[in-house]
């Protein structure tokens, strides 16, 4: 379909004069509330350069022509498949109380047929490198996740994973960042103990410390030593835990903290670049480790056109960075591997009239299906109500996803927006803006420098405030929150059965029990071995060139506690200081 740009330009002007402006004027508006895109909107580039084919550089159209779930879609429907059955994947994200509490919960799940691998949430003291008996841990032990004070706790959790569910058969996810090295060491130590080859271990440690400084706050050491630790995990995993993903880089948390879409994209890529550089600094060849990088997910919003464009731009940008800047040759190095693509983000859900969140989630699912992902209706509608997702919400979520897959067949076409004048120009614009932001960060010296000077953290805070102001001043409307809240509206609600996930009684006494466990551990272990292992760790830490993983593994196996290990590193590295607003 040839397009004579000159002709279209003339026709556009005519249309504006004869059709658009008169209409705008007729309604007494300053400008039209709608836009329309034409071939003129695409400024430069051609299909092969900018879009290409799914599964081929630059991957704009998708990482592959189809995903595994699409290959088995019919089978899944015929057997009434439920994702929580496992099937070689991780199970539901969770964790609470002591290791024994969580293990028992997992065993109960398994008995109900939910055989997914552990997808572990750790409590805040663990995430911040404190033991359960630390004054900082008071009131927080076992609350947002399970408490891990030592290798013994780790082993206890995995008592639920033996036999057909042993760790060479199911993957594990660890949402752990600052002390990720310690948890990875525990995973390796467990494999060693069970006689399982290290290269059979699968799963993903989050291991994305940079976003902690920017948006999530569970950091321990300053940025530079944290990157040294990352480097060491990267090298260790590349050498020994070859099937394990190295990290899960997240724009998601930054967006939820208030970052704009462009900041989400730019900061994620900046962080990714820093991690790549760390791996290279560790002496690794790019294609040996980059394929094991993953992305948690970028953030989302209700503006799905823009979210689809972000996914396309992100894939293209990362691919180009890996290929041109870092010389990657393996296609797998260039992929943005993430469990989900476009979505609405949890912060788009509302407490008011929560059933509307199902509608919102479905819109996000459609966007995902149109941007190379599974059309998941995420999150369940009662997300903002807290206290866990009800069975009803989960059922509705599953069915919505199934409807999008099987009835709408939204994901049956790869990158359906490819070639759209609108979507291509939007993708280009997204890429341009993100590159400009990325350029700013590179000029400062990269992600680490932009974290040390507080730039990224402050930018996110400002964006969060801007958004709040837009909503409070009704420049932006959120249905049921700042608009359509009058007396004629009905607060629709259904009865929910919130599955009793965590026994509140267990949770209440978890801190006390764990402190007793810790005391017992300290009585039973070989103090001399612990001391020696910590001393070796200290010396290794002082030599910037040394890889700390072997010494951390030794500490872990000697039953040094998480805090004891982190305290040694605190001594050598110092502690991260918060930045001013």
């Amino acid at each position, binding site marked *: 379909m040839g397009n004579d740009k000159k002709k279209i330009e003339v026709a556009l002007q005519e249309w504006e004069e004869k059709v658009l402006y008169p209409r705008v004027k007729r309604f007494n508006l300053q400008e039209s509330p709608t836009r329309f895109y034409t071939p003129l909107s695409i400024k430069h580039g051609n299909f092969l350069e900018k879009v290409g084919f799914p599964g081929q550089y630059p991957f704009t159209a998708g990482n592959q022509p189809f995903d595994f779930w699409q290959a088995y879609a019919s089978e899944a429907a015929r057997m009434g498949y439920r994702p929580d059955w496992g099937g070689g994947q991780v199970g539901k994200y969770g964790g609470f109380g002591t290791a024994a509490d969580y293990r028992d919960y997992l065993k109960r799940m398994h008995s109900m047929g939910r055989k997914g691998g552990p997808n572990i949430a750790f409590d805040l003291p663990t995430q911040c490198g404190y033991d359960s008996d630390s004054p900082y841990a008071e009131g927080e032990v076992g609350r947002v996740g399970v408490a891990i004070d030592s290798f013994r706790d780790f082993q206890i959790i995995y008592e639920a994973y033996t036999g057909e569910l042993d760790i060479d058969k199911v993957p594990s996810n660890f949402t752990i960042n600052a002390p990720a090295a310690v948890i990875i060491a525990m995973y390796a130590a467990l494999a060693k103990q069970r006689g399982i080859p290290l290269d059979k271990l699968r799963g993903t440690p989050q291991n994305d410390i940079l976003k902690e400084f920017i948006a999530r706050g569970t950091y321990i050491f300053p940025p530079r030593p944290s990157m040294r630790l990352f480097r060491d995990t990267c090298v260790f995993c590349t050498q020994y835990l070859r099937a394990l993903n190295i990290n899960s880089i997240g724009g998601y948390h930054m967006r939820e903290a208030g970052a704009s879409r462009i900041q989400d994209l730019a900061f994620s890529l900046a962080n990714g670049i820093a991690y790549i550089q760390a791996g290279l600094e560790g002496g690794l060849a790019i294609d040996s480790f980059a394929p094991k990088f993953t992305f948690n997910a970028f953030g989302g919003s209700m503006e799905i056109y823009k979210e689809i464009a972000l996914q396309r731009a992100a894939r293209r940008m990362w691919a180009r960075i890996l290929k041109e800047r870092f010389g990657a040759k393996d296609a797998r190095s260039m992929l943005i591997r993430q469990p989900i693509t476009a979505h609405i983000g949890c912060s788009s859900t509302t407490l008011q009239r929560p059933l509307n969140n199902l509608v919102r989630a479905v819109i996000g699912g459609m966007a995902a299906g149109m941007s190379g992902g599974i059309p998941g209706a995420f999150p369940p509608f009662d997300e903002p109500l807290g206290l866990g997702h009800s069975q009803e919400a989960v059922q509705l979520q599953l069915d919505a996803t199934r409807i999008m897959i099987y009835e709408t067949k939204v994901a049956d076409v790869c990158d359906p927006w490819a070639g759209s004048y609108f979507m291509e120009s939007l993708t280009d614009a997204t890429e341009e803006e993100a590159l400009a932001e990325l350029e700013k960060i590179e000029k400062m010296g990269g992600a680490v420098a932009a974290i040390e*000077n507080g730039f990224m953290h402050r930018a996110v805070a400002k964006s969060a405030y801007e958004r709040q102001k837009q909503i409070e001043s009704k420049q932006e409307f959120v249905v049921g929150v700042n608009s359509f809240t009058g007396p004629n509206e009905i607060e629709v609600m259904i009865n929910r059965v919130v599955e009793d996930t965590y026994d509140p009684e267990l949770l209440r006494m978890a801190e006390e029990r764990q402190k007793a466990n810790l005391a017992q551990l300290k009585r039973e272990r070989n103090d001399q071995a612990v001391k020696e292992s910590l001393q070796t760790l200290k010396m290794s830490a002082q030599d910037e060139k040394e890889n700390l993983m072997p010494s951390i593994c030794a500490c872990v196996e000697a039953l040094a506690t998480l805090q004891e290990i982190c305290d040694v590193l605190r001594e050598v590295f*110092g502690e991260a200081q918060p930045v*001013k607003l």
Partner: protein
Amino acid sequence: MAEPWERMIAAVKDGDVRALAKLITYVENREAGWKDAMKVVYPLAGTSTVFGITGSPGAGKSTLTNAIARRLCDQGFSIGIIAVDPSSPFSGGALLGDRIRMRDISVDSRIFIRSMATRGVLGGLCQAARDVARILDASGKDVVIIETVGVGQDEIEVVRASEFVMLICFPGQGDSIQAIKAGTMEIADLFVVNKADREGADEMVEEIEAMLTLSGQEGVQTPQVMKTSSVTKEGLDDLVTFLRAFMQTKKRRDRERGLVREEILSLMEHEVSRMVRERLTQDGRLEHAIERILAQEVDPYTAVEEMLQKFSIPTPGL
């Protein structure tokens, strides 16, 4: 019946921290009788050393303040810290965030940290900071540190309330020396190149030393330039030693005179300006003059001359 501030001062003498905080608020807010309160406070003060820390945003002033306070406290001194941040010119409010960088000294009972906003009044903050420093002095603090943002003129003013001024810079700061604001170079008693673990630190030290030598006066010792880093801890102990030496000798007798002169003039200016505003507004002379000027009956210069005559202040030769 004792004035509210009399009770507060008595409590402060007893070591009551809340009373100290409330007295500071009372004086900062210029509540009724605040000057009388300061007249009582003044003779109780005089034993502290007041340090001023200024420099551009990003120089690491708060972190450095934290490090200095930590060390001085460990060496047995009690500290008062005044951390200044700008007020919003639009709302009059302020976001005071210096405590963020002072977390590890914020539970020590011998360290009192107070955040102050500039409150947008020209010259007003300087006096208020001086008063607050004096109150902290009177409460028994050995050292008072005034830390400012380093943007705008208010901050330079504030630092004039100190006996000893440190100017903090850092490698990579804009166009290094050029970035150091006009005025700050003249008032600094010590230059600190912070973040010395970064590239360019030594060059910056050389640049500053050269600049100081060039602009130096006969017989006057040029201020020293030091390097510090909170990452490597380089120079921090030396800096504190240097400050302690100053505390011992307080060489700046010449400064003392100038500081007192500044204070008198600043208080006078504030008083006179307030008096003038009040009187002119009260009896409507100001409004009347505005009307006449707008009606083009008279120009502003003449209008002012006429009003000045009514104040019984001889018109200067205009």
